[in-house]
């Protein structure tokens, strides 16, 4: 019973992070019909920049509470990632909006490769440690342990997602985004600046991604130039699970995938009598993805994107 609660909590934390990243994927796919392969790398770069800023602050002996230091570093990383997301869209995706669908996919892969290797050139190939400035004492919770940081991650992720929902459903920009997702041409006729909306989508997604990157590296204590790839893949699976193009679906998909993965990793040896061990954890995301796509291709919440010509 203890393990179950612990795994559920782990799953919740992982799931919140997946949800944040999945939102970025689903927003871009909903509007452009494009899988932004580079999104995972933006998450990674957000983490890396934050760690670098933290190291600088700590190195100069800035004596502020750990949380404030992280917040400051995050405030440096978010605009950087937003700019990066905007640049990628302008340079690599916008010129190919009318090209055959494979072309932006290849550029996305190219951008992903460029960012990964840039990160390795700048930050090296080793694991980069997250400075230990945050409180890490665990609290007891129904027999499982959870740290203040982890509680913060869950709460913050929930707040951000709520904020995004508000933005998409109650503001003018949100209305423009939903209109563009439904039909870019008609939205343009209605006076929506489609290019602007698309740029904002990328910027928003990148901000979310940067935050998620910090959460991941703070939770696991380290970051690595390759971390974006697997995270991105799993988050995209989560987005598909929930119904690509659907924001609520991305959240639910993310949480669900995190929990499934956590429970699976915890119980897989028992389930298969020792044949499959927890090293198959990564396979879960893919298995879930394939199963969902085969049996319910529209995802859990259904999709509202029309068949693209």
């Amino acid at each position, binding site marked *: 019973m203890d393990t179950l609660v612990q795994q559920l909590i782990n799953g919740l934390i992982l799931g919140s992070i997946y949800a944040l990243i999945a939102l970025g994927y689903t927003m871009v*796919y909903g509007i452009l*019909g494009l*899988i932004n392969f580079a999104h995972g790398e933006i998450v990674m770069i957000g983490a890396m920049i934050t760690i670098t800023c933290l190291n600088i602050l700590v190195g100069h002996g800035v004596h502020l509470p750990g949380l404030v230091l992280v917040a400051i570093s995050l405030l440096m990383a978010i605009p950087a990632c937003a700019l990066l997301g905007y640049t990628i869209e302008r*340079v*690599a995706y916008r*010129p*190919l909006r*009318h*090209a*055959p*669908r*494979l*072309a*932006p*996919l*290849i*550029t996305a*892969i*190219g*951008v*992903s*490769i*460029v960012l*990964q*290797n*840039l990160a*390795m*050139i700048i930050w090296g*190939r080793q694991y980069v440690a997250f400075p230990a400035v945050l409180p890490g004492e665990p609290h007891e919770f129904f027999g499982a342990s959870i740290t203040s940081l982890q509680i913060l991650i869950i709460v913050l992720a929930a707040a951000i997602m709520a904020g995004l929902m508000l933005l998409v459903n109650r503001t003018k920009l949100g209305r423009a985004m939903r209109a563009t997702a439904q039909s870019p041409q008609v939205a343009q006729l209605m006076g929506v600046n489609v290019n602007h909306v698309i740029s904002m989508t990328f910027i928003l997604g990148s901000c979310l991604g940067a935050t998620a990157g910090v959460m991941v590296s703070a939770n696991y204590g380290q970051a690595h130039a390759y971390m974006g*790839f697997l995270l991105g*893949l799993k988050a*995209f*699976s989560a987005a*598909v699970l929930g119904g690509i193009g659907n924001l609520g679906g991305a959240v639910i998909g993310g949480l669900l995938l995190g929990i499934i993965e956590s429970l699976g990793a915890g119980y897989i040896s028992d389930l298969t009598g*020792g*044949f*499959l*061990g927890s*090293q*198959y954890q*990564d*396979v879960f*995301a*893919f*298995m879930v*993805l*394939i199963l969902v*796509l*085969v049996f319910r*291709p529209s995802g859990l919440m259904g999709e509202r994107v029309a*068949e693209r010509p």
Partner: protein
Amino acid sequence: MHSATPKVPARIWMAYLGIALVLFVMPFAMGAGFGNSWVRILDFVLLYTILALGLNIVVGYAGLLDLGYIAFYAVGAYLFAILASPHFDWHVSAWIILPMGAALACIAGATLGAPTLRLRGDYLAIVTLGFGEIVRLFMNNLDQPVNITNGPQGINLIDGVRLFGYRLESGFTLFGHRFSGDYAYYYLFLALALLAIFVCVRLENSRIGRAWVAIREDEIAAQAMGINTRNVKLLAFAMGASFGGVAGGLFASFQGFVSPESFTLMESVMVVCMVVLGGMGNIPGVILGAVLLTVAPEFLREIINPLQRQLFGRMVVDPENLRMLLFGLALIVVMLFRPAGLWPSKRRREELESAHD
């Protein structure tokens, strides 16, 4: 009234003869001009040509985006490794294993295709990507409880190919010069690559080839014309996969060693890039893509290291990272300026030209 079969003009025969001659002496020319390591690179060029041609069937002809194609390569390679190495101490002849590899990969392709046929473009891409990763993860972890694939360490000391008792990896002697096994393998790979090209050309101009084009362009219209889209798509997956299986077996015998590290997503992406960059659906374009993407990294490696030493006196940037960085940039640039690929098929070029009007 009948039309006379047009005689192939002499020029075309001369061109083919010229190409045949060049292909025949290529390894000697490269070896003498650039060193023996380039013959090895040539061998890999041919391997990747076979792979790219196989993927071209799936992506170029049938229009099905497959991002996990390397899984079939892995299946073929591991089959060869398991059946012809000290691992289980079986030493089956390569000429039995290669067709088996093709058949096994075929089945794998059909297995992948069957449940995923009704998926739309991008979803299919992700599922195939997931499939490729699953295969790699299984290869990596199937060393417990029963050691089938020897896990991350891979399988070593794989037998080479034997032709009527002659072991290819022992090389040969010609005009008093000693040539390594790489040279012998070149001719084997060349023969198989030419066979692959022949198969692709015949497929392209067959009912199946036209059915693939029809499905790629407009699936609903194809169905309306009576094409069994499900079976035809399955056939595309299976045929493409079989190429991968054969190439995988050749790879295992040539390199003598397989490990899960050779079959990552990056490799799948590379093959996709060869097809798309070279020119989807166009055989010469795909070959060009394979040649470019195999040779360019090696070429860059030869340039970057000395250049860095000259400019900075030492290695400022890890050459591997710089190489991949330039590769990524090249991908972006080529796609921005030639989204149809460097040598697109006529149909694509017409499509793109009309889109730009």
